């Protein structure tokens, strides 16, 4: 088991699961179906992959500001990633995670890490993300 704690914690909590390292950033809105957790952006190289229960590792978010709603809805339906690891802050995803925690008490921790930790996270098969401490 490889662990990662956030240099910056956007959303707290602990999440663990198999790693899904994205080759390109994912726009949640228009790119993720919250009913199934499937990537539906046909331009995305990993279209068809399912994010549910996995630790999503991508450099940053992308696209529409409605990503927060899609993430919160995915949390409500249980199709959200177990955690998200980024290299750049993404406040839109952060707010989606914060509101989901307020409404449903369920969390999708989101952390921002440095390049070295990010590279290690991409290579990991499984990852435990600890958004409760700053490492």
């Amino acid at each position, binding site marked *: 088991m490889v662990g990662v704690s956030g*240099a*910056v914690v*956007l*959303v707290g909590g602990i999440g663990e699961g198999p790693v899904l390292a994205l080759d390109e*950033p994912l*726009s949640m*809105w*228009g*790119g993720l179906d*919250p009913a199934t957790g499937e990537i*539906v*952006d*046909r*331009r995305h190289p990993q279209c068809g992959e399912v994010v549910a229960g996995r630790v999503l590792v991508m*450099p*940053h*978010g*992308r*696209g*529409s*500001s*409605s*990503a*927060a*709603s*899609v993430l*919160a*809805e995915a*949390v*409500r*339906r249980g199709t959200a990633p177990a955690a998200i690891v980024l290299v*750049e*802050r993404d*406040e*839109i995803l*952060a*707010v*989606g995670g*914060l*509101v*989901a925690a*307020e*409404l*449903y008490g369920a969390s999708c921790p989101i952390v921002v890490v440095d390049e070295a930790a990010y590279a290690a996270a991409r290579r990991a098969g499984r990852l435990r993300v600890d958004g409760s401490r*700053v490492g």
Partner: protein
Amino acid sequence: MLVRLELSERDRDLLDGAGTAAEQLAMRIVVGLAGAMGADRLLDITGAHVDGCLYHGQAGLDYAERLVAGGGRVRVPTTLNVSSLDLLHPHLYRGDPEVGAAGRRLMECYEAMGCEPTWTCAPYQLAARPARGEHVAWAESNAIVFANSVLGARTHRYGDFADIAAAITGRAPAGGLHLDAARAGRMVFDVDAPGLLDVDAAYPALGHLVGSRCGSLVPILVGLPAGTGEDRLKALGAAAASSGAVAMFHAVGVTPEAPTLEAALGGRPPAATHRVRPADLRRARDQLTTAAGPGLDAVSLGTPHYSVRELRRLAELFDGRRAAVPCFAATGRGVLASAADGGVAAALQEAGVDLVVDTCTYVTPVIAADARTVMTDSGKWAYYAPGNLGVDVVFGSMAECVESAVAGEVRRDPGLWSG
């Protein structure tokens, strides 16, 4: 990298529950957002534009109902983005009635909190818009990029939930694009395509290219003609905010914070410089097209919402002819009222164009479910529709869209892109 957040006395009172339950929840979200942004204080905002009124599922409605039940009222003038329904033309909605009812309930929640029922993704086309240097909290990626770049107002990338939280508290984190440091351009695009820059459709193609290459960095465009109009800048920004996370761009000699390249760079050297030639713009245009043959089932225009100028131009291009396939043009109800005054709306109805207001044809079922190929002049629509609607897209100029609508099949103007 822990930053201590200094809160004002009133911020702390709201957080402690001295105000309404909605103010307390909203302040928790603003404070959480400030932490995510690494901001050390909050600042006052003069207005907000809310995107959370578009129905994406139960979570958005749960949040809005929690705020309404907690006595939520906006503290600053707040406009509303597109919703999932066209209230003026409800017959255009073809979706699930239950989803339609939930979308309507969500719209009512935001109106109940005192937001203005503008229902447009182009709030910068309304009469009241923020001045240069004003701090606002805008959501909707195309509105954010327009506010920062073209108006010189200051908003970070707000999204659903944060927008209304800022409106209810009147506060936003003093971070990101509210501050000078983040507004400096980092990646230069030297656009060397003078012929093509006379073509409207080159601007969404350029936006698509810029967004694909610069991610979340602030791009600087060099070479755009002085006086490049708002419709072109709108199309450019919307496409760049779709293919990338662009929340602000500079166009040297065009946008207010870029009188010179040096000013746009803010005294630092660029991270990278790209040359953009006509072939690059043609490649971007081709990337926005997924359909192969001439077949055409519908035409969708007005993403972001058309301005009065664009509606007038559309009516001129039809020139008394009629669309042979369903043709939709989306706009704000405020713009539609102006267009109706000038007879433009009537001319478009004569041409068989369905004017869609309050919403957008790729966020709600308006286009027939069996439509396979749809043509658009919007880089943003072309980017999102294949995923959202499962259609194939043809991206072209407004004139190509009109000729294709009239012919009932895709018509290209080979001279247009020769630039």
